[in-house]
């Protein structure tokens, strides 16, 4: 790691203030992606602003038909939450399969979403459930949040405070794991929501996205058979040593089918 200055604040305002003073600062939540990146000297922030001391960012609350999850809530806490398991079991399961148990004890929902790794799991849930990302400045609709590979709608001094997930009628997430990293080669989240059927795809392309054609097909008939004829264009797919674009496109359909089956 390169040298940096370390700041830990007990409040959102304090953290933002530290960020504004920093030359090239970075917020760090659980650090499960950030620290390995820094260890490989692939990132060189001048300042690290640790959000780990901000109590108000931690916790899960039920607000009517939604669940609000504080940004610094760990994956393990989401997975173990009775409220999440009852209202959105898909989300508890998704959180309980990110990384491994030790990673889940440190990694947070806010960190995952703000990082927007193309192969991360949470972004698929945010998109498919039509969640709202709440920040210290505003509320951002899930559909508007993820703007590109490792890019989001967040400003430099903006940090996620919580994510609010409306309860779906049914939802399922199917992940095809990279055998090495265990990240998603393809992850598909299918949800029946008040807003209709929503399909979100992670891992397959440079940024999580809605599978609009799959959604259309499923609106006609919510069954795995309905996905079969959908064209998933290969040319937009990621390709690496683990999966070619062709295989990823195929997996998008397979994982969608399986998610649909798990919803019904």
């Amino acid at each position: 790691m390169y040298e940096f200055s370390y700041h830990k604040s007990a409040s959102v305002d304090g953290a933002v203030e530290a960020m504004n003073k920093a030359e090239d600062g970075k917020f760090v939540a659980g650090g499960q992606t950030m620290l390995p990146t820094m260890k490989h000297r692939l990132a060189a922030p001048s300042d690290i602003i640790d959000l780990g001391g901000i109590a108000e960012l931690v916790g899960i609350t039920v607000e009517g038909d939604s669940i609000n999850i504080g940004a610094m809530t760990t994956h393990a806490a989401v997975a173990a939450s009775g409220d999440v398991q009852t209202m959105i079991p898909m989300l508890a399961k998704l959180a309980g399969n990110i990384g491994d148990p030790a990673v889940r004890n440190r990694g947070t929902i806010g960190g995952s979403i703000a990082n927007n790794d193309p192969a991360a799991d949470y972004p698929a849930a945010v998109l498919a459930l039509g969640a709202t990302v709440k920040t210290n400045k505003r509320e951002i609709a899930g559909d508007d949040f993820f703007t590109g590979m490792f890019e989001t709608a967040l400003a430099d001094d903006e940090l996620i405070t919580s994510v609010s997930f409306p309860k779906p009628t049914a939802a399922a997430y199917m992940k095809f794991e990279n055998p090495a990293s265990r990240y998603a080669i393809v992850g598909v989240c299918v949800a029946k929501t008040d807003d209709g059927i929503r399909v979100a795809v992670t891992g397959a392309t440079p940024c999580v996205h809605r599978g609009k054609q799959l959604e259309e097909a499923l609106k006609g008939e919510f069954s795995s058979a309905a996905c079969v004829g959908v064209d998933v264009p290969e040319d937009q797919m990621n390709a690496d040593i683990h999966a070619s674009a062709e295989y990823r496109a195929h997996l998008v359909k397979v994982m969608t089918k399986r998610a649909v089956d798990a919803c019904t």
Partner: protein
Amino acid sequence: MVENGIGASVRRKEDKRFLIGKGNYTDDINVAAQTHACFVRSPHAHATINSIDTGEAMASTGVVAVLTGDDLAADGIGPLICGVTVTSDDGEPHRAPAHPALAQGKVNYVGDHVAIVIAETLAQARDAAEKVDIDYGVLPAVTDTGSAADEGQQQIHEVAPNNMCFNWPFGEKDAVEAAFASAHKISTLDLVNNRMVTNPMEPRAALGEYNEGTEEITLHLTTQNPHVHRLVLSAFNQLAPEHKLRVVGPDVGGGFGAKIFVYAEELVVGWACRKVKRPVKWTSDRTEAFLSDAHGRDHVATAEMAMDENGKFLAMRVMTQANLGAYLSTFATMVPSYLYAFLLAGQYTTPLIYSEVKAVFTNTAPVDACRGAGRPEATYLVERLVDVAAADMGLDPAEIRRRNFIPVDAFPYQTPVVQCYDSGDYEAALDKAMAMADYDSFSARADEARTRGKRRGIGLSSYVEACGIAPSAAVGQLGAGVGLWESAQVRFNPTGNVQVFTGTHSHGQGHETTFAQLVTEQLGVPFENIEVIHGDTAKTQFGMGTYGSRSLAVGGVAIAKACEKLIAKGKKIAAHALEAAEGDIEFADGNFSVAGTDKAMNIAEVAFTAYVPHSYPEGLEPGFDENAFFDPLNFSFPAGTHICEVEVDPETGVVEIVKYTAVDDFGKLVNPMIVEGQVHGGIVHGVGQALLEGCRYDSEGQLITASYMDYAMPRADNVPSFDIDYAPTNPPHNPLGVKGCGEAGAIGAPPAVINAISNALGIKHIDMPATPENVWRAAQTAALG
């Protein structure tokens, strides 16, 4: 049975220190005034070095020294060596390009060592390493095994035209061709043996200390063979005279071959600590390990089998291209030659075998032994080819094996490829494994799987391997620069407890337990009173270390021989003390007794008498401490049948191993618990190769799989529990009746897994690693109904 003796699953002596966090691995050792080293490595696969500017790095905070290849050469430190000579088809020795420990004018793979930066802290060393300014002239890279020797390829080393290290033909070419010409059927298979990164969990490390007063260098290393390191570093690298160099391999966190070799970092750290007159410590991080540990396997081969109308093997022909990487690692040349072609008979009576091995240089990390070393490559090729042959002949894979097995009454069996197998009952192992695997009712399970949209397959692998390489005279004839005997010293202390010094090295194998069992069995000393000591050239007599599953089969026998000497001497001492003739003294259960009387003396009392010889046989040396060296007459030849059953999801290509059965012949088992653990680990290493692990370079020579994010290691949820049993035979030339067990799993498993997948999909072949995408593609091609 003696308590805790041979055959008992004794809990391991070494476990407590590991379990309470008191292991002592190289990186755990810290010494006063220690500095930390970081190696500057080439980011290019192939480049000339036009200049190196160390000025800014030297000025960086905390830096003690920045040293380059020029400094190394100025001090007369020699290049790294390869210890085994293979004679090429032109009658010349293999081509051996110079392998400087720090680059001199040129780099040949990504990770090649260019400079060492030594600083007060590791972070400072790393900071400064980035400031070493190197001007490279980048050249095109050669990375592909199959085409490395093609015409028009970029040349890597001047001394190796066409990037060829050697072309080594072996066998009776004309006779094989004649047999092919008249064969009823010829089966052919092209296959790749995928490159692996060995990946012991403890990364390599070195800690060098120089004592100005005694002019001695002490090197703590992650080594499987401390004396071999000392010998090579002294004799060939001129690091220090052998008596002024101490090499310690403390607790070592796994080796699997990767820690046999003498590496650049080890030599440079040893040299640098004398140069800077401060202790220097270097510990590899995992990415460095991927870049710079010697890799394994990496063959491209074509195999052909000629058969008669009954499926009897008449002749086999194998053409292999083997990648040795950018330079020759310590035993690199031996792996795709003697350790490979000499195993091509497998368990079969194939009377004629012809093999040609072309070994090539590429701009990749050096390739050397990795668990099994040559034998997995041979076994994979033979056992895959046999399955293809079975399909071509319309025979069940088990049936074609039976028709060609070397029969039980034919041992010792001379194969056409040098090896003379010691003992074996291949049919017994096959029968037992088939029964355990419920082979005969497989089709019902396959039908059931089909109703769930899955495809089941079952695969056999009947392997034989050669371990405990020997005898020294034979390996010398083959061009090895060392002997392959082993040594032991068994020392009684005056109070009756025992220290056993072995020249082997334990890095997970449990020698501290197994060897103590041998001694308790033979000498009757309580297990808890025996300590096994290894891994320090200042403590133990010269030894050859641990690799090739040799430690018990060779090193264990040396211990037994030292014990025999103690018993012989003890009889003299007891005879004197008991006032009897030496010939009347019997030894059993730790007691020397006078035959036919109740007069007896415990071995501890004999030991005390030997050290306090107030009343002692005239002319007999005092002391109770014996040395022995053992040079076996032959290798030992473990064998067995492994059966893998898989379930394939044709829609995704995911392969699940649903059942895995192994029946092995390791001769007599000293500690069955430990043996079983070795088999488990070997199988998963093999499953890793078959399903997950594929080391990949891109065309520019960048290592794509340089971390666990991209190199898939087998994890607990990739494998099931295993069904293990044995079909032992008695190897006549091994005094303990033992064979080696450390590599068997890694040798037996890959073909069992791939045969099962091929069976599931009804295809001829799929290359390793059978990743989901590769399996999915194969399933598409097979157009499963």
